[in-house]
């Protein structure tokens, strides 16, 4: 009798266990991502295997210039909002895990090499704040103070670098700062007079070179992170807006700089060109005339193609450059206001957001056919979880 009762109990336990796994099925997150819906302060969690939107998460504030980094377990997306909001979204549960308003106005962020620190780049008050990635508690504040009167600079181009370091640029001060957290507390190295108005920065995929784009003059500022003692050098001195300063209707993004084995593909500033540069000596090889002022110039993960989108008012178009022929091989019209593109980890698909068309289109990168479209509210940035394991993203 007793044994019978116990077996019933066990059976019941077993079944309730099954029911649990039916409702919350186990899954990985390697094929998930988030799409920013900039006007509604929400993100959509998407599935890149089944090409569907899984859930909308709301309450993330002003996302008019938002970016995302991932925890190294690819479960949490840290969303950096314009209004200083830092939100940790649990993409498995589809809900906000933690949220803090950490500044008045911010521009982006980065996650440390060990995944334990999240840094945010702020305009107001100018500087960088570093948080515990698990709890979002403030670990350290780095005010970007420069000049004699203690002015604070807007900070831009914040990336993580090997050695538990963060690198960023000071827009108003024309400086690059290296913040080394390897001892637990920030050790700051300042590089002054690196150029006028650095507006964005990137780190090469190997984590060696930090490159800042300059808005106020031509050329790029490069810091070799293997040899920071050698200081910041200038490359491509004819790269920029040139002597006849062309108006720029949207600042190009450097994050998407395309690097292939031999070449770097760069957006021209204020001109309808993509520049092809030799990766070893930084000499220009070719200027490719394109549809408009490029914003993102991104290589497919295998480096065989480079996809380009454009600034207002020519922003309904995406073009594909063949990296062997160095020619445009395809022009696509995904809809009004194309803002961002993201490749699936191995590049068979690219997801393209068209803000004013209120949709994301998924293209097959081999055939250029649109496979599906997903309706979204004013979609902008698209971020897949494989970014978790890439230096600088």
């Amino acid at each position: 009798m007793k044994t019978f009762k116990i077996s019933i109990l066990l059976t019941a336990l077993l079944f309730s266990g099954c029911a649990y796994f039916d409702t919350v099925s186990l899954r990985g997150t390697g094929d998930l991502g988030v799409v920013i819906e900039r006007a509604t302060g929400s993100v959509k969690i998407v599935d890149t295997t089944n090409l569907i939107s899984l859930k909308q998460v709301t309450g993330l504030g002003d996302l008019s210039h938002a970016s995302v980094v991932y925890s190294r377990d690819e479960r949490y997306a840290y969303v950096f909002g314009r209004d200083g909001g830092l939100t940790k979204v649990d993409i498995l549960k589809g809900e906000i895990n933690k949220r803090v308003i950490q500044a008045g106005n911010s521009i982006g962020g980065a996650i440390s090499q060990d995944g334990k620190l999240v840094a945010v780049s702020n305009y107001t008050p100018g500087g960088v704040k570093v948080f515990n990635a698990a709890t979002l508690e403030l670990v350290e504040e780095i005010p970007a103070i420069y000049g004699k009167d203690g002015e604070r600079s807007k900070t831009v181009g914040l990336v993580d670098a090997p050695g538990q370091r963060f690198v960023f640029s000071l827009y108003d001060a024309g400086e690059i700062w290296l913040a080394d957290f390897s001892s637990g507390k920030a050790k700051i190295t300042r590089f002054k007079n690196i150029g006028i108005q650095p507006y964005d920065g990137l780190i090469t995929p190997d984590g060696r070179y930090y490159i800042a784009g300059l808005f106020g003059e031509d050329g790029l500022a490069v810091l070799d992170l293997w040899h920071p003692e050698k200081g910041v050098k200038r490359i491509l001195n004819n790269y920029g807006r040139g002597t006849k300063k062309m108006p720029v209707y949207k600042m190009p993004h450097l994050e998407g700089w395309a690097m292939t084995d031999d070449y770097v593909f760069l957006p021209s500033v204020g001109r309808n060109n993509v520049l092809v540069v030799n990766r070893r000596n930084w000499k220009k090889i070719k200027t490719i005339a394109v549809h408009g002022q490029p914003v993102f110039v991104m290589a497919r993960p295998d480096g065989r193609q480079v996809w380009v989108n454009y600034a207002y008012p020519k922003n309904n178009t995406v073009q594909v450059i063949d990296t062997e022929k160095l020619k445009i091989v395809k022009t696509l019209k995904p809809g009004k206001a194309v803002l961002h593109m993201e490749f699936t980890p191995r590049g068979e698909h690219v997801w393209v957001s068209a803000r004013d068309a209120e949709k994301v289109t998924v293209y097959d990168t081999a055939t250029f056919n649109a496979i599906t479209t997903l309706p979204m509210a004013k979609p902008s940035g698209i971020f897949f979880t494989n970014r978790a394991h890439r230096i600088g993203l």
Partner: protein
Amino acid sequence: MAFNFKLILFLLISLFYNSVNAEDESISSMRKSELHNLLLQDCGSCHGMTMKGGLGPALTPDVLKSKSREMITRTISNGRAGTPMPPWNTILTKQEINWIVNTLYKGIKL
């Protein structure tokens, strides 16, 4: 004399009123909604969707109070040298720029 002064004032006011109206009427409601979107989304890339600022300065009614309308109109039209602010007079008409300035001073609705 007093009568004439009142008449002139009346004429001036009605003239001003009409010109404001004329400006508004020259922009279709469809175009207005495009401009509204441009202001929120494209200007918003630098000035913030709520116009509280970003790479570019804040443009809320509170901030604009102390700035001259002419200066703001000129900046939107011609851009501002030494900053990333581009000129919009090659893309937008005078009326459209005026509409944007008016909307900024009133405060943009999301």
